[in-house]
């Protein structure tokens, strides 16, 4: 397989669960600084695709190259350390720790056992936490127990935890699910801001939101790519209307 300028190059990726191909010979490229949205009906394999990229599920075949390095053989934490961050569908935060602690734990230092024992929350760590907290709008909630945050704030906190690691590729699985209209707007602005120096893959169902944020849209169906391109082109594609948008 050839090397390329793409941040993420997925080629011929296949995964089968007991013969059922959840992802079927899928090929996808993501550019530097691109915000890619993946849409598709339930069971199309969107979340599975993210699982494969971040190593949660092992591929049956094909390759995933991140900055020209093969990812399919690496362990999850190695993939994260090479610069891929992933947000889960339901807010996955540490409910009984404070917002500050949630962000501190995500700071990419002291990741070994003894590193963690010796880790000190120095001024640069604090500065970084405050910076990220301001970015996600939780600057005045640093001492709040994370479990007490509203649903939208929890989603932002998880995004913030990923920002602490400053990943080059950020993958968000339905970041606005369950958010109010106002929260959706704020999230769209947040994603636009944080996308400036990194690539992103977002899975989303809300078409208004997709229109607002997407640089390029990929439509998945039955583990394959059905269509790819700018939002208005994809939206008028008869195949897409048939399997997804029309129903």
């Amino acid at each position, binding site marked *: 397989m050839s090397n390329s300028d793409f941040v993420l190059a997925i080629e011929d990726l296949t995964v089968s669960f007991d013969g059922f191909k959840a992802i079927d010979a899928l090929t996808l490229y993501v550019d530097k600084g691109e915000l890619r949205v993946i849409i598709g009906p339930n069971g199309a394999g969107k979340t599975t695709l993210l699982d494969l990229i971040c190593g949660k599920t092992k591929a049956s075949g094909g390759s995933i190259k991140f900055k020209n390095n093969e990812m399919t053989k690496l362990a999850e934490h190695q993939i994260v350390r090479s610069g891929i961050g992933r947000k889960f569908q339901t807010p996955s935060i540490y409910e009984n720790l404070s917002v500050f602690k949630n962000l501190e734990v995500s700071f990419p230092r002291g990741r070994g056992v003894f590193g963690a024992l010796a880790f000190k929350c120095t001024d640069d760590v604090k500065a970084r936490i405050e910076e990220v907290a301001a970015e996600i709008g939780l600057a005045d909630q640093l001492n709040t127990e994370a479990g007490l945050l509203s*649903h939208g704030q929890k989603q932002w906190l998880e995004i913030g935890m990923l920002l602490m690691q400053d990943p080059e590729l950020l993958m968000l699985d339905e970041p606005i699910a369950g958010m109010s209209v106002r929260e959706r707007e704020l999230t769209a602005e947040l994603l636009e801001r944080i996308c400036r120096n990194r690539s992103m893959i977002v899975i989303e169902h809300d078409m208004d939101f997709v229109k607002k944020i997407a640089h390029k849209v990929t439509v998945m169906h039955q583990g394959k790519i059905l269509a790819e391109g700018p939002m208005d082109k994809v939206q008028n594609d008869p195949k897409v209307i048939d399997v997804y948008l029309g129903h």
Partner: protein
Amino acid sequence: MDKLKKWLGTSDMAGIVVLALVVFVVLPGTVDIFRLNLVGKYLTYAFVAVGLVMLWGYGGILSLGQGVFFGLGGYCMAMFLKLEASDPISTKIQSTPGIPDFMDWNQITQLPIWWEPFRSLPFAILALLLVPTILAFIVGFAMFKRRVGGVYFAIITQAVALVLSVLIIGQQGYTGGVNGITDLKTMLGWDIRTDSAKYILYFANAVLLFGAIFACRAVQRSKLGTLLLAMRDKEDRVRFSGYDVANFKVFVFCLAAMLCGLGGAMFALQVGFMSPSFVGIVPSIEMVIFAAVGGRMSLVGAVYGTLLVNFGKTYFSETFPQLWLFLMAALFIGVVLAFPNGIAGLYESYVKPWLLKSKAPRDTGAPTAQVTPEATPATPPRTSAAPARALDSAPSGKQPDGVGPAVA
């Protein structure tokens, strides 16, 4: 008085100081040496309970085989003491003088080679710390790297406990079998059976126990402690934040095992024997009960839990010889049902607010609202997670409806 109450209510050192008073002043001042020696014995179990607070309370890993590590530490110490007690002069009536008596009874004529190094006290001390730790490392590495956890891990630890106790009983000639290693007399010539030795050993044990508590407290307060809590609740999030989760589990399992080994060694010193009855499944489960009754999130609570359960055991078995096991079971079930966070949980939810009440009006209650790691009960995350999930699923369930009109 108010100041004292406030300090007791807010400082997290208060619990440790009060426990230190109980262990170093109150108990030695009030009970006779026979009872104090019993307390000393209970306090050796407290090492296991403290280890379980780290492993089970913080790490969320339930091990039902901590007796294995307690036993290994105890046996390492007992082997040294037994060799010292088996000098050629005092064993001259044996057919092979100079070897432990049980070996002689089992027609063994030469000290097994792996017993030899235990003639040295430094080696024995190193072994009693490292043997349990290394075994924990091997078991932990094999299990956690394969992502074995929860009930399955607990079953494996039970199996290890069973295997080791069967092995010890089966290899009677090398281990003393069911009787264990008995008749321990001196350590480097110092008679450990006298009252004065018992006092000294009691205090030495207590000092070591507080050392263990402080060490665990330091771990809890480091980032590693935060990570353990984080792993317990959201293991995947920790993994996908770039941590190799298995390594942290192995570490905390090894830490708990080392504490068990230390407790076992102090047990052998204070009680004067070591036997397989502290290795198997039943004692291992009992040790979990100590931590559960005391409160699995509290290091200090675990010590109280150990003392309470063992006092109960002694009292019930002396007073109601026929009923005591049932009474113990009732105590355990009662505590777990009524106070899932044990004695420490009771203290957090009833005593602390009462201590702070006199000050509360002027204080705006800020200190009570603060949640310290030790104070965090295991239940709130579950209750607070439930509404979050409900919130999440309800609107996202409606999502497709919202999509339709937006596109059309």
